[in-house]
């Protein structure tokens, strides 16, 4: 059923809510600045507010309502106990500037998470401050830049980025005042060592790489790659978006990566929330440790401290110590797996992706042969000849009860479909998804092109006109 915009509800706002606090006078000095025009925020009664947002929620697909095989996004189950514990009053209702002795419990949980992230990544020095993955990239590059400057190599501003990389990589480099040079991927979708060598020089600050890469393939030359970059005087930045393939099985730090951000809203299951909040802790080795941002959480004796000032630090990158609630959820997730089970995250994630690949590889074009890690890459090449594109397949999946996979990314293949099932999906669900994909392939071959172009027909809205939206943007409601 339709639900109007709240501005369209057919009545004036009910009387104001009963409010606690001081129902007294404001100062005449402040009153002189009284707002002259009404805010025109309509307001609904509580019953109507709840019904409005509950109804809106029903138009959404979420992990709790169905499979969400978005490649590079790691849409896994978000434990409910995590939502419960972060709402405990001593964690939810504390201020970042309370005296340290009044927040030792919170600091203890955060410090523990720092230690764990260091251990899991093999990069023992950690900041929890970055608010998201892209923010972590920026922070990591700032640290690399600070390190190079400290070495007297302020000329090094070139960042090598494979053409398969996430778009945030070059954007973060630009924001850090560095120049991106794109590396063309090899025929197997991996980094081409010759291409890398050709671009490494005395101006090179870093290589930004994602491993496994965005085609789902592990960069098996990782040791050599890191060695080449280090020999050329640069550092290696790891984009941790795909860490779910490795957690508990292998550590980026052991491979030669100097600096890595971790998307806790991917690997450690903090909910995506329709776009955020995320969390992008950055883990580094000894080389970069002095440059970590402030405030830092440290343990001194039995006391936990927030260190606000440090000479070599790149300084603050956020107005607080981080997205604390998100970090606490990550602590809870790791606590639940513990030493005994943590590797099962990567193992089942990789098992699931390879299983999907196995079931679909005869009917969908696989651009790069071999094992995949936690996600598998297909293209629409076989379907193109029937006039069906990746977008049609994606939209048809909606009618069959699934969220589409990531489409048209990575950019290095035409019509990419990147599928990431994660460790929290059952074989039953994977089979149902693969069956749906095979049914689409059948329908395509049977010439049901029009039906595929018309999809989706089941959800609340059908295909939306994005061109119209962009050409004449309407971003706020006008009565």
């Amino acid at each position, binding site marked *: 059923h339709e639900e109007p915009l709240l501005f369209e509800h057919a009545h004036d706002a009910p009387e104001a809510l009963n409010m606690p606090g001081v129902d007294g006078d404001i100062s005449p000095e402040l009153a002189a600045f009284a707002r002259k025009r009404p805010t025109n925020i309509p307001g609904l009664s509580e019953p109507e507010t*709840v019904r409005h947002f509950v109804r809106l929620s029903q138009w959404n697909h*979420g992990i709790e309502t169905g499979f969400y095989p978005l490649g590079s996004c790691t849409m896994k189950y978000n434990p409910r106990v995590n939502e419960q514990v972060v709402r405990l009053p001593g964690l939810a209702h504390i201020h970042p500037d309370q005296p340290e002795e009044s927040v030792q419990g919170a600091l203890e949980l955060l410090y523990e998470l720092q230690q764990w992230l260091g251990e899991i990544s093999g990069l023992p020095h950690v900041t929890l401050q970055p608010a998201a993955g892209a923010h972590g990239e920026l922070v990591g590059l700032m640290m690399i830049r600070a390190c190079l400057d400290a070495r007297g190599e302020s000329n090094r501003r070139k960042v090598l980025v494979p053409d398969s990389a996430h778009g945030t990589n070059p954007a973060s480099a*630009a924001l850090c005042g560095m120049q991106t040079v794109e590396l063309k991927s090899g025929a197997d979708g991996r980094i081409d060592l010759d291409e890398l060598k050709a671009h490494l020089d005395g101006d090179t600050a870093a290589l930004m790489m994602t491993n496994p890469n965005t085609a789902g393939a592990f960069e098996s030359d990782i040791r050599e790659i890191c060695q080449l970059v280090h020999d050329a005087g640069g550092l290696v930045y790891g984009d941790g978006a795909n860490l779910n393939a490795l957690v508990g099985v292998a550590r980026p730090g052991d491979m030669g990566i100097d600096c890595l951000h971790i998307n806790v809203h991917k690997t450690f299951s903090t909910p995506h929330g329709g*776009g955020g909040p995320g969390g992008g802790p950055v883990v580094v080795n000894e080389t970069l440790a002095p440059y970590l941002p402030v405030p830092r959480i440290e343990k001194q004796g039995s006391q936990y401290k927030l260190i606000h000032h440090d000479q070599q630090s790149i300084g603050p990158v956020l107005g607080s110590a981080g997205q604390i609630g998100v970090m606490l959820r990550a602590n*809870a997730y790791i606590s639940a797996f*513990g030493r005994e089970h943590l590797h099962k995250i990567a193992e089942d994630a990789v098992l699931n992706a390879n299983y999907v690949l196995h079931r679909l590889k005869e009917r969908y074009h696989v651009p790069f042969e071999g094992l995949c890690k936690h996600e598998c890459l297909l293209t629409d090449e076989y379907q193109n000849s029937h006039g069906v594109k990746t977008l049609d397949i994606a939209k048809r999946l909606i009618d069959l009860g699934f969220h589409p996979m990531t489409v048209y990314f990575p950019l290095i293949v035409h019509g990419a479909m990147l599928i990431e099932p994660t460790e929290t999906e059952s*074989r039953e669900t994977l089979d149902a998804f693969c069956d749906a994909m095979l049914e689409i392939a059948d329908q395509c071959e049977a010439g049901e092109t029009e039906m595929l172009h018309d999809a989706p027909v089941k959800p609340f809205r059908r295909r939306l006109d994005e061109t119209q939206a962009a050409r004449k943007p309407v971003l706020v409601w006008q009565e």
Partner: protein
Amino acid sequence: MRFLPHTDTDRSAMLEAMGASSIRDLFADIPAEFQLERGSLGLEPALSEAAIVRKFTRASEKNRNATNSRYFLGGGTYHHFVPAVVDYVISRGEFLTAYTPYQPEISQGTLQALFEFQTMIARLTGMDVSNASMYEAATATAEAALMARRVTRKSRVVMAGSVNPRYRSVTANYLSRLEGEYTEVDMGGFGTDLSKVIAAIDETTACVIVQYPDFYGSVYDLAPLRAACDAAKCLMVVAFSDISAFALIESPGAMGADIAVGSGQALGIPMGFGGPHLGLFACKQKHLRQMPGRVCGLTTDVNGKRGFVLTLSTREQHIRREKATSNICSNQGLMCTAAATYMTLMGEAGLEKVARHSAAALQMLVTKLPAHVTAPLDARYNETVLSFSDQAARDRFLATARSEDIFAGIPLEQIEPGAGANHLLVATTEMVEESDIADFIAALEVAK
């Protein structure tokens, strides 16, 4: 492991289907030297759910919190009331566990809520348009400076010294890696002297950043600055730290802001030890295409029905890569839904009441101050600076207050390292009761 659906039977069957004999076969592309032995990481043993609850409960109980204390802390984070409805809405899996709404057909819930959020933020700040959130206020301020450079094609950024020191230091940090000048204007006292700011503007200036109400809670007229910015053809960026103010006092938009940035934490989001909060970013329509971050726009589907999509994505990193307006990708989506729910529940009248009570509590507190403590007498919203004779007097009061479970304020130098150690930044919200103020004043008398 309760989050993993597979039994060993499942795993074996799947491996068999693939012709693999063990899961580690699937990791053959990772050099053996890098592969860890199972269970070899230095972590704690796995905890049952009950044990996790116990662990977090114990940690929580080590902290004193705003539900069992009297609370006067501000400085960018405020203890406003969070209605149960807000938490319920954002706890629903359909909002909580959804991804960014790139597939609009099955994301209209998130999208319509975003559109409503953008509209209400624009109205409350008095601006034309809002984006769909930034991380928080400090980074949003930095992004505003960068946007002003793109809009004006000039590079100098002038920052008033009365902007929250954390917004200033993050902005300075962001800008320091890029070309262009950055100037901070020292204010001297605990308020904003616009003449000093205006004097710092020159023709190379891309923007002036002020905070309103400023870091010290001061409210002042921005008209002179607007005129100066017009004259210098630079943008006026207005930062704020408690958006609840604008239900009571003139908005940044009404004061002439080109860009308004700040925190939406007051809109139904708990303090949470510093986050996740909600960064807001609003601007004039004409600068829309230089705005960073995601935006939601109205359109129609193939049946002509109204619907919403993420739009103007050609500004963004996944399309424009190094030429994007920002690198931001994950934002604070769920907090937008929280804020939209909160504003809907409050409405104009409720928001105004929150603001009025917040300001009235400060006024009552300031009026009752004993003679040995001073506070500015000009217009302040819900925050001000109390000054003591010396640090010892202040710290004596803080200790007395703590013993009465009153969080009486933030030592100013904790946020502003250059400040003298005899000042206290004190904030009030609608959660402060008259009796809390009486206890605050009593503690002042005791510690005199």
